[in-house]
């Protein structure tokens, strides 16, 4: 039988991971040239799933939504060939290739007016140094509030609207996407491209967002 029921992203709300599980499931990456500056080892002890890079090791992984939350320092994290403007350039690049990527700006240079953009583009910030309790509070808050299918879907809609995709097509896509998530099926980029008739570049950005929607709905790793 054919089902005519229009599905919406709120239909998968029940799949959202419980807050106490989010901290264990969400992949967090800390990028800071000073290994001792951020208490990532203590966070690991507390059950958070945290990786640490002293500098950008693989930009590809940051573009592809591999990590659910990135904690990024402003200076000394990127070689000149990666970003001419160090942390700010990296942050801009990440937000461009994966608009839904959650990033916490982490630096002791809040006083520096020339770096204001860094703090404004990021989803939130932590001053340096910050205590473990502060770090936990900020991470938990951001993950519980933003690591949800709704947050990433909103980002996705934003991109589609900018590409002049009609409201009707967006609704159809939403319904199709929810069905696929419920079935536990991945959606390849070529399918997205065909469904929405968009360029492969935009389709790959959408693909990254869908991957994170899946993960935030507890469907896949």
């Amino acid at each position, binding site marked *: 039988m054919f089902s005519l029921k229009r599905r919406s992203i709120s239909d998968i709300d029940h799949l959202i991971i419980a807050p106490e599980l989010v901290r264990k499931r969400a992949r967090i990456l800390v990028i800071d040239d*000073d290994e*001792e*500056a951020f*208490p990532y080892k*203590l966070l690991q*002890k*507390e059950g958070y799933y945290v990786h640490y890079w002293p500098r950008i090791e693989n930009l590809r992984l940051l573009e592809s939504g591999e990590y659910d939350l990135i904690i990024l320092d402003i200076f000394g994290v990127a070689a000149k060939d990666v970003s001419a403007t160090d942390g700010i350039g990296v942050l801009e690049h990440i937000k461009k290739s994966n608009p839904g990527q959650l990033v916490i700006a982490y630096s*002791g*240079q*809040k*006083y*520096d*007016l020339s770096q*204001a953009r860094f*703090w*404004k583009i*990021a*989803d*939130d*910030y932590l*001053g*340096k*140094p*910050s*205590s*473990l*309790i502060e770090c*936990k509070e900020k991470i938990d*808050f*951001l993950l519980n509030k933003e690591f949800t299918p709704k947050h990433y879907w909103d980002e996705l809609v934003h991109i589609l609207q900018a590409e002049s995709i009609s409201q009707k097509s967006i609704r159809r896509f939403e319904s199709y996407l929810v069905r696929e998530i419920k079935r536990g099926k991945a959606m390849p980029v070529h399918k997205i491209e065909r469904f929405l008739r968009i360029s492969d570049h935009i389709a790959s950005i959408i693909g990254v967002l869908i991957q994170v929607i899946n993960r935030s709905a507890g469907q896949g790793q």
Partner: protein
Amino acid sequence: MMRDLLRAVIPTPYIYENCLEDGGRVPQSNYCKKCNPKHCIRNTGDPYHYECKGGFSSFSLSWMGKPLILNGLISPFTGSKFSGIRRKQYRNYRVSEQDIELIKSTLISIEKFISLRTEENLMDSVTFLHEIRTSVGIVLACCEEIISGQSGFTFEEKLERTDPKTKDLFDSIGLLQEQLNLTDIITNPSSITYGKKYRSTIHKYFLKMVKLFAPRAAKRGIRIQLNGTTYAEIFAYNSFQFIPLILLDNAIKYSFSNREIIVSLEERADRVSIKVSSVGKVVPDEYRDRIFDKHVRAPNATEEHPRGMGMGLYIARLIAGAHETSITYRCFSVSGGVGTNEFSFEIAKYVG
């Protein structure tokens, strides 16, 4: 020093901070010295020119945010009260419109220069503070490492089981860290609105600061009492925590020893009211409207602590403004310049 600078720049007599000052070229006239009503002092800003009963012109300018009046002059705007003989007697007091404009523009240029140099000096100090910040980070990491060695599942549980001295150390580092963070706002006030707004209880903000300040207050026998049982939530930027920090820091600094600082939190319909009161020297009347201005320190503050930038309450005002509220000061039970100082504000409760 400021007087010497002004005298070097202003050739005519002038009035600054209600004091009659001689100009670099022309002193105050006997007429102005003997004048009792001094109506010209009250004529600040608008209208720019004022003519007194004696027929002298005065021009209202400003210097460092305060009114500066060029007084006792004969200008092209001066009316007919000056006869030929009188005009001769006061010929040194004659100024043209261009003279006034020149003084005005010189004052503006010097003010800009001073402000630029102040900012540069401040920036140098803050850059130096960045080094201290790194060291504080190391101390904080060591302290957290010690605490994490305690038994318990979470860090918070471990902290609860830590001995009081280590806890005091942890709180003191926390205070130092917050004070360093406050310097960021001094140099970059736009950082007040960096980050997201969070829901949190007003009680939590004050309880945190009361805990952090308790060891410092105890050294002077001061007890901080947190009254009120409201657990109402507010929706605030991270910077909001600096309001309790500044108000409590000031209260401890200027409170008499062995007294009590009372923080009261009260719920009122859709708002929460906050009051921080302490006993000490009160702010003199003429400073009450200005204590929230940049670099303004009232005499009661300079007497107790001669060194200070006069930035705390200014920052508190900016942060309050970013949260659509304002802080007010009042004092009561005053006797002999001593009484209860109270800073209060109200903030909207978070409604989901």
